[in-house]
């Protein structure tokens, strides 16, 4: 993303400026890389490659790992729970990425383009803050709150169903305890958490747009919805790309909500890759197997990021050609 901008910047600079900054002891800047790169290499790169090594071994965490080649990966491919965990991760892509992006664009343009001009910026900022609140609070704590809200006996939701709407107690759902329902309950909670992020990013994107565009459209007699479709949606391209990338990555990484709310259950009905990997590290102590899951997940995430960045760069290039 920025790689392109960096090289462009250098090219756009007049030759003189380029030369002078080259001549003036460029070498001294390399020293500034040392602390950050050293720490990064030791802690992140080192751990990452050690994890890959572990994934080719049989190890219970004690003693030394024993090399078994690709055995862990072979077992993974026939492990139904592994595939199931990825199915759930893809459900979370819908709940954390696609739906919040759609809703976010809509709510953000409502707030920025409709509420703010009529009811003031304060009203729009207040609403934005309200939607953003679930983002600020640790997921573990929102998880505790939801477990409590969704408790089948003492929970707020089922109490409301029984006493507010008159649904008989016997048929009120066990939101997080029913195999067929738990993943859907989690998905709805994830939508609730994520939407604030997309609203904030898109509202900031809208403030970047040229207001004369929408004003011109308004003079032409376009309705708010037409303006939304034609101008806002078309102009928010870069933000939509960033939001899709970051939220998809986050969806595939989900761990804390599952840990707190369902522990992957009931059964394996809410199992996700990150939790599955953790489970093998620290519960079954099949460390090599857990490491293999984590390695596959990393690979998928990296490929996904590269694909999205490429699509975005291509679109950017197209726009520039126009």
């Amino acid at each position, binding site marked *: 993303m920025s790689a392109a901008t960096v090289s462009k910047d250098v090219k756009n600079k007049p030759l003189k*400026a380029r030369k002078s900054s080259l001549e003036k002891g460029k070498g001294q800047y390399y020293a500034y890389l040392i602390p950050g790169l050293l720490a990064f290499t030791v*802690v992140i790169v080192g751990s990452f490659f050690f994890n890959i090594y572990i994934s080719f071994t049989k190890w219970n965490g004690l003693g030394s790992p024993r090399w078994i080649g690709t055995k862990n990966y072979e077992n993974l491919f026939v492990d139904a729970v592994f595939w199931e965990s990825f199915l759930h991760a893809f459900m979370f892509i819908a709940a954390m990425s696609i739906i919040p992006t759609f809703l976010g664009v809509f709510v953000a343009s409502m707030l920025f383009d409709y509420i703010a001009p*009529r*009811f003031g910026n304060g009203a729009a900022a207040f609403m934005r803050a309200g939607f953003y609140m679930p983002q600020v609070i640790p997921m573990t*704590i929102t998880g505790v709150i939801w477990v409590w809200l969704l408790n089948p006996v003492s929970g707020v939701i089922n109490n409301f169903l029984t006493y507010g709407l008159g649904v008989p107690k016997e048929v009120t759902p066990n939101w997080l305890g029913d195999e067929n329902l738990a993943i859907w309950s989690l998905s709805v909670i994830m939508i609730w958490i994520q939407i604030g992020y997309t609203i904030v990013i898109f509202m900031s994107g809208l403030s970047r747009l040229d207001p004369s565009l929408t004003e011109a459209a308004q003079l032409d007699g376009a309705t708010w919805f037409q303006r939304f479709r034609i101008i806002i949606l078309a102009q928010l391209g870069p933000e939509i790309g960033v939001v899709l990338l970051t939220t998809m990555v986050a969806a595939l990484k989900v761990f804390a909500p599952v840990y707190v709310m369902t522990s992957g259950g009931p059964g394996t009905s809410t199992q996700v890759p990150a939790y599955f990997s953790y489970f093998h590290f620290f519960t079954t102590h099949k460390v090599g197997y857990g490491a293999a899951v984590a390695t596959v997940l990393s690979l998928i995430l990296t490929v996904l990021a590269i694909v999205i960045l490429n699509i975005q760069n291509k679109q950017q290039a197209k726009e520039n050609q126009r």
Partner: protein
Amino acid sequence: MSTATAEKAPKKIKTSALKPRSFVSWVTFAFMLVAVIGWLFPFWMALANALKTPDDFIQQGPLAWPAHPTFEHIVKFWNDSNFPLKFWNSTWTSLLGAAITVVLGFLTAYAIGIGKIKGRTWILGVFMVAFTIPQEALIYPLYNAAKKLDLYDNLLSIVIIFGVTGVAFSTYLISSVLNEFPGEVLEAAKIDGANAWRMMVDVVLPILRPTLMVITVMVFIYNWNEFLIPLVLLPSNDNQTVSLGIALTVGQWTTEPTARAAAALLGALPSILFFVIFQRSLMRGVTMGSSK
């Protein structure tokens, strides 16, 4: 990717020149307001029930506002969970971790954005990939290393890991800001004979201070919310952070619904407070680098 847009204050529409409000616009406004209230409803329920006595809860159910509000549960959880200690653990580790992240990120970004060193594209590319790596792919080696280095169950271990895991992200943001740094200012400093160190301290840092503050606030809040790393590395009760402690103790400690609500409320309170205090910084940080 530029942050120029994030740096600018959002365009303000003059409040004196509000557009006329029709019936439809009032309906829309009411609809949005109800949606926001719905969004905050879980927190409202946590508050209402944290203040209830168990009898009150049984008689009135969870939806009603308490007949006799009491701080009893909150105080009890505060004491039983040793909340002040957990608060302190979270605060200093998150803050020190954020400081390390920003210092390391700034130095690296300085070499990239101002020094324009060779290979900078590669470094940023590797950092982008690092951003996608899940913590699960690092946690077992880190756990193993912490045990070997006698840092297991030691808060310093999470400070180091917080500090370093954020470097890729902070380098990325800071270098995108530094790419936009006015060239004339740098040239002028060079003509005055400033070397890289003097230029960083006297020219770049003063101008960049607000950006660095924004990033510090954001990383602090990320660290505060961190779960997996403290979960794995800090087993003992006295070393737990707020986000870890509430999640773990609440299940073991009580099944009383009102007491659970009190625990959740207490756990959420510091974050709500940070949000109120740092809202502007946080919003700027989150949107930084989201547009080209």
